[in-house]
C-alpha cells in the first residue's frame, strides 16, 4: 500500500542560488517544451527562437520597440504595486489607463493651440487626475462600507473602455475623419518628444522617475512604513493610531493616477489621438508584472522590459509562419514555467509514500 504522492513543503529560506537558477531553468524548460510543440506543428524551433530574440531584444529596432511596450506596462504595474502594497486589490488599472488617456486627450482636443509648455504638463495633470478620480470611485465605498474593491475596480474597467468608445464614436469624433471613430489628431505640442530616433517617448522618464520615487517611499519613508503596516495588518495599523480610511483613499487615488499617466503617455507618445483599443490589456498584464516583481518598483522596470520583449517577440515569430495562436501559446508556456518556478523557490517538492516516508 505504498501509494506515492507529491508533497509541497515550504522552504524556510529560499537559497540565493535557487533564486537565480530556478527562473533560468524555468525559461529553458519552457523553451524546450515550446520547441517540441513547434516541431510537432512543423515549425523550425531554432529559427523561431532566433527571430523571437532578435526582434525583441537582439536588434536596435526590436529593443526600442520592446521599451515602447514596456513603458505602459511599467507605469500601470507601478500603480498596481502601490495599491497592492496596502493589500488594496486594484485590478482596475486598465480602466484607469483609459480614463487617463481620456483626461489627457481633452486638453489638445479642446484647446489645440496651447503652447507645449502648457499643453504637456496640463495633459499630465489631467490624465493623472482622471485616472485617480476613477480609482477613487471604488476607494470611497471600500473605505466606508468595506465594499470589495476587486469587483468594483474590475467592473469600472468595462465602463471606462465603453466610455472612451462613446466619446470617439460620438462627441469627440474627428469632424474631418469621414465619420470614422477616431478623435482629431493631436497637435505637435501635445505629443511627448520621441527619443533615440525611435518610437521611445518621454514616458520612459515618467516610468523611471516613478519607480525610483516609489522605491524610496516603500523603503525609507514614514508614509511608506504606514502603508506597509496597513497592508500587513489593518488591525495593527488601527491599534497604532494610523488613519486607515484616509490612506485607502490616498493610495487608491495615487494608484489610479499612475495608471492614468500610462494612458496619457500612450495617447500622447504613441498614438497621437484618442481611439478605440488604445491598450491591448496593459492594465491586466501589469498585475502579473507587479506580482512577479514582488511589488519592488525597480524590479518592475526590469520585468516590464522582459514582458515587453515576450510580447514583441511573440508577434514577430509570425514572420516565420507560426500562427498567432501558437505564438500566444509559446508566451503562455514561458509565463507558466516562470510562475511555476516562482513556487519552487519558496517550496520544495518531495515525493513521499502515503505513509509519510520520504523517497530519495
Amino acid at each position, binding site marked *: 500500500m505504498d501509494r506515492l504522492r507529491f508533497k509541497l513543503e515550504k522552504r524556510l529560506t529560499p537559497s540565493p542560488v535557487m533564486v537565480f537558477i530556478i527562473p533560468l531553468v524555468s525559461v*529553458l524548460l519552457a523553451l*524546450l517544451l515550446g520547441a517540441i510543440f513547434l516541431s510537432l506543428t512543423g515549425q523550425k524551433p531554432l529559427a523561431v527562437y532566433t527571430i523571437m530574440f532578435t526582434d525583441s531584444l537582439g536588434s536596435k529596432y526590436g529593443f526600442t520597440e520592446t521599451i515602447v511596450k514596456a513603458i505602459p506596462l511599467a507605469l500601470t504595474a507601478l500603480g498596481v504595486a502601490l495599491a497592492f502594497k496596502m493589500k488594496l486589490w486594484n485590478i482596475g488599472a486598465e480602466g484607469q489607463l483609459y480614463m487617463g488617456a481620456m483626461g489627457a486627450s481633452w486638453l489638445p482636443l479642446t484647446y489645440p493651440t496651447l503652447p507645449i509648455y502648457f499643453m504637456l504638463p496640463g495633459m499630465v495633470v489631467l490624465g493623472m487626475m482622471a485616472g485617480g478620480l476613477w480609482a477613487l470611485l471604488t476607494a470611497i465605498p471600500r473605505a466606508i462600507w468595506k465594499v470589495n474593491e476587486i469587483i468594483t475596480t474590475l467592473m469600472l474597467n468595462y465602463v471606462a473602455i465603453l466610455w472612451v468608445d462613446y466619446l470617439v*464614436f*460620438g*462627441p469627440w469624433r474627428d469632424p474631418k475623419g469621414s465619420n470614422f471613430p477616431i478623435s482629431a489628431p493631436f497637435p505637435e505640442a501635445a505629443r511627448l518628444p520621441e527619443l533615440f530616433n525611435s518610437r521611445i517617448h518621454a514616458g520612459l522618464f515618467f516610468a523611471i522617475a516613478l519607480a525610483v520615487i516609489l522605491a524610496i517611499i516603500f523603503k525609507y519613508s514614514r508614509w511608506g512604513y504606514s502603508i506597509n503596516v496597513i497592508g500587513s495588518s489593518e488591525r495593527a495599523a488601527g491599534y497604532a493610531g494610523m488613519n486607515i480610511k484616509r490612506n485607502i483613499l490616498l493610495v487608491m487615488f495615487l494608484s489610479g493616477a499612475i495608471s492614468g499617466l500610462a494612458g496619457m503617455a*500612450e495617447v500622447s507618445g504613441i498614438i497621437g489621438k484618442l481611439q*478605440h*483599443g488604445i491598450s491591448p490589456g496593459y492594465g491586466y498584464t501589469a498585475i502579473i508584472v507587479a506580482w512577479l516583481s514582488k511589488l519592488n518598483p525597480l524590479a518592475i522596470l526590469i520585468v516590464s522590459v522582459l514582458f515587453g520583449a515576450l510580447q514583441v517577440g511573440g508577434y514577430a515569430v509570425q514572420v516565420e509562419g507560426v500562427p498567432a495562436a501558437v505564438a*500566444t501559446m509559446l508566451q503562455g508556456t514561458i509565463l507558466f514555467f516562470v510562475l511555476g518556478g516562482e513556487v519552487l523557490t519558496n517550496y520544495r517538492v518531495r515525493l513521499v509514500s502515503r505513509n509519510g516516508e520520504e523517497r530519495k
Partner: protein
Amino acid sequence: MNFKRRGTILITLLVSLLLVISGCGTKTPTATPTPEAAKEKIKVAFVYVGPVGDAGWTTAHDAGRKYMVEKMPNVETTIMESVPEGADAERVITQLAEKGNKVIFTTSFGYMDPTINVAKKYPNVTFMHNSGYKTADNVGTYFGRMYQARYLTGIVAGKTTKTNTIGYVAAFPIPEVIRGINAFTQGVRSVNPTAKVKVIWTNTWYDPAAEKDAGKSLLAAGADVLAQHQDTPGPIQAAEEVGKFGIGYNTDMAKMAPKAVLTSAIWNWGPFYVKTVQSVIDKTWKNDQYWGPISDGIVDLAPYGPMVTDDTKKLVADAKAKLVSKSWDVFTGPIKDQTGVVKIPAGQVMSDKDMLAFDWFVEGVDGKIPAAK
C-alpha cells in the same frame, strides 16, 4: 534528492533541448523549386486584425491571399494575425517592411495611421490599406462596394420574411456599417415596402457570444430573417436554432448553419490582390483609392440555400444585372430618411463622398445611430 542527481537531470534536459532544436532545425521543409524559380521572387505581407480562422473578415482576406499564391508562383507571402490596432500595429508593419516585403496589405481601418507612418520610412515598399481614406506616394487604399451585394441580399430577405420584421445585428456605428444597413433596407423595401429592418448594435467585430445574444433578442422581437455585419456566425446560428433564417457576411456561411442561411454577402479579394501585385511587378502601380464595384467581382453573393425560390433568384439576377451594367446604383433618389424627409431627390445619385460619410438611416430602418449629431 541530492544535488548531484539534480545536476544530472538538468544536464539531460539541456542536452535534449539542444537536440530538439538542432535536430528540427536541419530539416528543410521549404517548397520545392518551381519552374519560375529563375525569376526573382517577390515578398508580399498581410496584416490581419483577427485570426485567419475567424470565418469572417480575416478568413476572406486570407482566401484572397491563397488565391494569389496559387496564381502567382513567384510570390512569397507572410501573414501576421490578430494584430491589435493600438501601438502594436506600427511595429508589426515596420518589421514586415524591414524583412524585405515589397507589398504590404493592411486589412483593418485601425491600421490607417500606422500604415502611413511606416510608409514614410520605406519609400520603396508599396502599402495598400484596406477601408481607410488616407493615401501617400506609396500608400493606396482599397475597398469594395459591399453595399451593392447587401442590396441584393436585402431582396432575398424581403421576399422571405413573413413577419415583415428583419433583424440586423450591427457592429459599430461607422459609415461602412450604416451604408450596409441602408443598402440592405433599400433592397428589402424594393420587394416588400411594408417591411421594417430592426437594428441592434453590439459594438464588437468578433464576439461570438455577444453577437449570438443580439441575434436572439432580435428573434424575440419578432424578426424571422437576420442579417449581420460581424465576422462570426453567431447571429445565423441563433436563427437556425429557432428555425428562422439568416444572411451571412464576409464568406459563404452556409456551412455554419445550413438550414438557416439564405445566402451570404461575400468578399472576393483574390483577383484584386493578383492585379495589385502584378502592377507593382510591372511598375504600373498607382496610389489610387480603389472602391471596387460588383462588376469587378470583388463583392458578390454566395450560392443560395435550397429554401430560396426561383422567383426571388430572378429578382436578384435582374437587380444584379442593373448594377453590373452600371446603369443604376443603390442610392438613387428619391430616398427618405427615417423622419420622412427626402434626403436624395428623385433622379439624383448619392456621391461617393457622401456614401463614405453616411451618418443617417433611410426610411424603413428601426433603430438609432448612437451619438449622432
